[in-house]
């Protein structure tokens, strides 16, 4: 397990807090492993440097097309 992975107690508490119950011990260990992996992956994503970067990239609207002009 790497430094990015939470402890077993931490991941159990996290899972419980977010509604994930009844995981087998083996699956809880797997969740801990995946938590470490995704934390590392998150750190590796280069940040877009400027907070003034525009426009927002996840939301757009367009005028609906009207049939018959």
């Amino acid at each position, binding site marked *: 397990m790497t430094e990015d992975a939470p402890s077993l107690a931490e*991941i159990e508490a*996290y*899972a419980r807090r*977010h*509604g*994930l*119950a*009844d*995981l*087998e011990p083996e*699956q809880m260990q*797997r*969740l801990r492993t*995946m*938590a470490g*992996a*995704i*934390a590392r*992956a*998150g*750190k*590796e*994503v*280069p*940040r*877009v440097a400027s907070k003034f*970067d525009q426009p927002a*990239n*996840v939301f757009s609207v*367009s005028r*609906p*097309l009207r049939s018959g002009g």
Partner: protein
Amino acid sequence: MTGSLAPPVADAEDELIHLSAAEAGRLMLARRLSPVELVKAHLARIESVDDKIKSYLLVTAEAALKKAGIAEAEIMRGAWRGPLHGVPYGVKDNYFTRGVRTCANSRLLLDHVPDVDARAVQKLDAEGAILLGKLNTWEFGTGRGAVRHDTPFPHARNPWKDDHFTGGSSTGAGAAVAGGTAMLALGSDTGGSVRMPAAGCGVVGLKPTFGRISRAGILPNCYSLDVPGPLGRTVEDCALALQAIAGHDPADPGASHEPVPDFVRGLEGGLRGLTIGIVRDLGEARDMDAAVVAGIEDVALALREAGARIVEVTLPAPPSAYRQVTALVSGTERLSIHEKDFLERAGEMGLELRDSLMAGFCARAVDYVAALRRKRELTASMDALVNSLDGLLLPCAFHAAPPFSRPDLVQAFMTDSATTAFSVTGHPALSLCTGFDQDGMPTSAQIVGRYFEEAAVFRIARAYERARDWRRRRPPI
């Protein structure tokens, strides 16, 4: 067909099932081939080989024969619907099919029978194409390359060697088109899931521009990356399929309003005056099969001989940079799709799906948004490159499909590829066969084009196909 019609030009089932969809369509229009005979030949083929290649999760034989009879009657009375009229096809089992189980190879959906067809299925139905059944897939199209053999239905197998991997996630689509159990197939591509099985099985697979085809009625895998796409034996077949299913759909908020051009008309136009960039250096150390490298060079040679100017270019970022984005985006969005089932029924999921959802469950929101911002940055730089050219030639899969007995190589087959970049950027990208390695397994290359210029991608790929007709080599099953 019956009555005074000429006898079929191809009597043997073996010949019928190796026709291209376009060839079969032309024969049916000329009333030299019956849709009923064609469908029967494919059903017989499924009966004889699908135990080996497992391309289908469900075969709808009775409905297919009924539709074939209708198609035959329509063609006989002159009510020809188009080049796919009477052509048998399959769809990945994440496409909704009215009255036909759609389970996406998941225990969560084994009883799921939609009451509506996916928009793409509706459109093929309107063209008179004939659905043969539901094709094998990774669970919900999800996976990172590991084959765990823990889904309700076993993995599809490669028709070139049935102990070999197909590529995923549209596993059955690749196997069916190569193995002759469907003339055409529809798959879906999140990070390479159309192009990789096409590469592994030696057929043509297209991921069109993001938004070119409606996703309505297709089970989602990742909202920001999912693109439906056809697999066929020829470039023309993929062009015909795209022609039939492309176009705006108000039911898919990501569907584009871009007009749909004629994808077939320019196919034979040649390449004189076109500039195509070849990517030899992917920007990071990669172990690539010698046969794959030779295949790329062979494509470049053929394109040059067809009149194109070939220039060497580099991608703005290495493949790993794009995978950094998808690692965050796909797991997080996938969890938003499956959250309820994950919280309540995680134990019923296969390990690949569950692992991905676990990653999404633990991902930080700020990392997800950072990945989306990075996606836009990568997209802008790639678009500048693609726009400076008429097309891009680069590797698809870096290896030929490996045997299942080597899980390390199976995983490497999916991760050692250059498909993810164009899933992130949304450009159209096509995988085509470039020959065979020393073990007789297909090798592949990828052709990429500008947004909504699939016609140019087809034209380039067709120029290579015309020069090297690998389709004439058939799998030994």
